């Protein structure tokens, strides 16, 4: 019966597509909350960051509204550029960000230096949970810059972030 259910689901195109994903959900990160690597500098070892590592970096607050929240929320976490500096940009122009559900988005690295983009760990003082947008939600200061009021930046607000790959 279980097999039938699985086969029925497996017959759907959507599932077939999901199973065909390279690496799939097997992308293990161990105890690490975030893996940072720089493909533009192959000699630079990847950095596997635990929650403590992230909290050890300077914490920055961003207050902003998003289409995913009811009102202005105060987010707190390390600056994305500080995390990038751990491996060094070294000519990388794009940050390929991957979420827990394998959703990914490419963000220009220069935006991390142009704006105070943070890897939010807290929202209104509460730890972001995996059952919400946690444990890491990339957050732009949308309300502080009119040019960020665009759907393009909704797409870049990737939550449940697990991997940052510089290219």
């Amino acid at each position, binding site marked *: 019966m279980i097999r039938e259910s699985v086969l029925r689901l497996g017959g759907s195109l959507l599932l077939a597509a999901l199973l065909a994903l390279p690496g799939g959900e097997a992308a293990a990160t161990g105890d690490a909350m975030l893996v940072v690597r720089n493909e533009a500098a192959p000699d630079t070892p990847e950095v596997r960051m635990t929650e403590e590592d992230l909290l050890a970096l300077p914490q920055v607050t961003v207050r902003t509204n998003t289409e995913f929240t*009811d009102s202005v929320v105060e987010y707190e976490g390390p600056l994305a550029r500080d995390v990038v500096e751990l491996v060094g940009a070294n000519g990388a122009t794009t940050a390929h960000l991957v979420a827990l559900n394998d959703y990914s988005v490419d963000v220009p690295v220069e935006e991390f230096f142009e704006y105070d983009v943070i890897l939010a760990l807290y929202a209104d003082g509460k730890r972001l949970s995996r059952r919400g947008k946690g444990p890491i939600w990339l957050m732009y200061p949308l309300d502080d810059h009119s040019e960020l009021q665009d759907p393009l930046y909704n797409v870049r607000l990737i939550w449940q972030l697990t991997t940052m790959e510089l290219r």
Partner: protein
Amino acid sequence: MKISIGITRSLAASALVGLIALGAVGFLAQYKDLEGLRESSQESIFWDASQSEAELARFMATLGRYALGDDSVTSAEVNKRFDILWSRVALFEEGDVGRRIARYDTERQVIRELRGLLDKHEETIVNLSRPVDEARTRRILAEFSAAGAHLRALSVEVLQSEEIRLANVREHVRTSARLTSFASMGALVLALVLIGLMLIETRRYRRMAAESAELAERAEAASRAKSQFLTMMSHELRTPMNGVLGLLALVRQSSLTDRQLRLVERAERSGRQMSTLLGDILDFSDLQSESLVLDRDMFELASLTRAVEETFGPTLQREGASLRVELSEGLPRWVVGDLARLRQALGHFITYLVENVGSKDVRLVIRPGAGGPVFEIDAAVQYSELPGWQPESMLDREASEYDDFASDALGPLIGRNLIAMMGGSLELRRATEGRATLSVSVPLQVIEGGVECVRLEAGSVTVQAVLGALVRRLGHELWNESLGAQRVSVVLLEAGGEDEAAQAAAMRADHPGARLIAIGAPSAVSLFEAVCSQPVTSESLENALRVRRRGESEIV
């Protein structure tokens, strides 16, 4: 003109209305654009809905593989998928995205159903371990599978609604484009209409300007004809009047009784008055037609006072009035201007005050002023002859006031115009009761540094005449033998002749104190104080006359 103003107003009004209408259309187009932009800027909720469906499928697949005994799948992996599914449900419960999806889920309540299943199986999934309870797992999968079908239906509806939303955006853009096209076309038509109307207006204004120019030309021609008529009539009347006066003078010389003599004198006085009036009309006509030209010559201020006394003294005496003329200290001796016209202007004011106002005591004082000599005519004014007359009326009447223009105002009017032509000004003061002072300021050129007495020695008559005119124009005196050799201060000698040295020596001998200036190119420059090259101009001659030192010749 009224029609033209009407067209101009309607032109402006139509342009204004057109602009307002186009502005309204443009505003509407912008509003539609903004509406479309706002809608297109919203997060795509279809993506969120379909992702939830996908996450549900992934959870079920992971749970199924775990239940089938796939060792590569751990309970932690199943819980991770379970948590991700939780996060999708949480996404639908807040924010603008959640509210928009909830609008399509009011009937099915799929989100609530999914949340209920997550709550229901929370404990089972969190505590998942092998061996797996197959029956329970089968039930869980069946329940989630049913919810998945409902979620797919929701996704389809959201997809369709998103298509409708995008269609609305496109419609907004289309409407905006149509409105913008309409506004642009309207602006084009309005501009063409306005250009057309402006061309019509321009043509109308040109026609009006041509008509105005023609009218002005006619008026000018009429004025010229009037002036010519006045001039002609003045001449025609003065000629017989002079004949009458001449005959009366002859009659007066014959033996007459006292009564006859008085009658003849009265007739002579009337004749002179008429002759003067005709002269004034002639002058007024010349002033009106701007054909009167002022002379510019050097004269002594003392000669002006003498001329005023000689010309107007006897007349005023006959009227029983006294005229005193005084020259103040500090006045230049020689000035440059039009002596005759200045005397005429002053005479008009004086005569008017005596003959028309009835003043019996008139004083003319010439004193130095900031811009040249000031001629002050101070007169007793008792207002006996003209009741209600005020001295200021001498300056009030303008040439254009013909309606009630009295002949007695002609003299002061001519005087004022002559003074204005000379660049002068008039001011009236009443410092004491019963007297009025009219100050006439005329900027006459003052001859500085004294007047030279110049002897001309030129071979040709032409050069002699030219040099004489220049000397007079510069305000200097031309020598003649009656003035005596000692009077000569400058000798202008036409140089370059064979006997140049002999002539220079002779001039030195005749006028030892005089300066010798060569005209032309002298053979021996050292013989002269200065050299004035040909052609001689006022400026070069003036510069040569300024050279004072002897012994160093200067060529100018």
